[in-house]
């Protein structure tokens, strides 16, 4: 069973819908117990970085951290990916998990923000997440803050400079774009995650 973590932010319906279409057993849950028992975990999120602070207060953060330590496959989407970093300029008082190094920063004034629309990835590694996709797939983004490129980056994107579009460490994954809104390419990526 795949747990889609509900921490009161954003719209979880579309992630659930995509997994349903892929025939995956999944449930939207805000219960730390469900998260602990899950075979895989997806943490979606659009909205403000500060909303992730409810993960700590609700006990979900401990459940997620524990699962990641046990090597349970985990996928953070959008703000759910940014939360895996040390923090974000969007809410300096809210700490991220710090599993990936660096702070998420705002796009410069020279470009429109949010970065909305379909942009092309540069898939740099043979990550299992991108199996069967072209090396430069188009995916859908909508975000104003971005994560830096580092050694765990498995796909880059360019908008006023390069940023991390996907990161991976073992079975811990984060994607800045919305696979549930990225057509065939996105469904393939979700299906790859489900197949781990």
């Amino acid at each position: 069973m795949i747990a889609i973590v509900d921490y009161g932010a954003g719209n979880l319906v579309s992630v659930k819908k995509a997994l349903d279409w892929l025939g995956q057993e999944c449930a939207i849950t805000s219960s730390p117990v469900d998260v602990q028992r899950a075979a895989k975990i997806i943490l979606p999120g659009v909205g403000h970085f500060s909303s992730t602070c409810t993960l700590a207060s609700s006990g979900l953060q401990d459940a997620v951290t524990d699962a990641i330590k046990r090597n349970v496959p985990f996928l953070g989407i959008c703000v759910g990916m940014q939360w895996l970093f040390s923090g974000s300029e969007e809410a300096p008082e809210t700490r991220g998990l710090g599993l990936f190094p660096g702070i998420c920063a705002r796009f410069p004034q020279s470009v429109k923000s949010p970065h909305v629309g379909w942009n092309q990835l540069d898939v740099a590694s043979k990550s299992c997440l991108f199996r069967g996709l072209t090396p430069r797939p188009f995916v859908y983004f909508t975000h104003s803050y971005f994560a830096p490129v580092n050694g765990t980056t498995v796909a880059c994107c360019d908008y006023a400079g390069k940023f991390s579009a996907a990161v991976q460490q073992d079975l811990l994954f984060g994607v800045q774009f919305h696979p549930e809104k990225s057509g065939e390419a996105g469904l393939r990526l979700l299906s790859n995650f489900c197949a781990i």
Partner: protein
Amino acid sequence: MLTKRIIACLDVDDGRVVKGVRFTHLRDAGDPAELAKAHSASGADEIVLLDISAAHQRRTTLLDTVRRTAKELFIPFTVGGGIRTLDEAAAVFASGADKISINSAALADPTLITKIAERFGSQAVVVAIDAKRQNGSWQAFTHGGRVSSNRNALEWALEAESQGAGEILLTSMDRDGTATGFDCELTRAIADQVNIPVIASGGAGGAAHFAKVFEKGHADAALAASIFHYGLSSLGDLKQYLNNNGIAVRWPC
């Protein structure tokens, strides 16, 4: 590179797509769910569903239509038409919309933009502006272009942005339905001033019109309805044309 988006719009009356539809292979060409899927398969980057039903038949039919359309649609999906409150917006999101589009209600109470943005994020709030040229500038109109708001369209776009709008859906009332091309002057006047994406709408009659509104109008996206049924054989042909003309689009999808 961030690509220019091509958005297919479905005008829906009481659960049925209106404006002539020529997808011959569809079992039911008036069904929004089938049409949205067909547009997505042929290369649309987003789907916008605009409910034009009379108020009394609107709510329950709309939510059911949104649910059915969203079910097998895996590209961004915006729903607009008659959303007046945060609760109404919440119900549309719960039915599967990714973004909502508001027009008259936002002009009547601009803080509605902020309320929806605070709960669902700015990326989920599209403010639709119906602009008509009057005395050398553009005025924002409401109620399907029938009522003047007495607001300057550019000033209203800037206020909408500051209230938390994530995108502007800008329709030229002067061009809408004429198939003579988008209003590049209007689009550029607003796209150059706001720092959020502007979707150009109204007047699409051929592939060259799209190229022009991206190049001359500085639009981030362009929306059309009937042309995708009549004017062009497919959305794929449009994208191929734009791609051949050096405009970055998601192609092949």
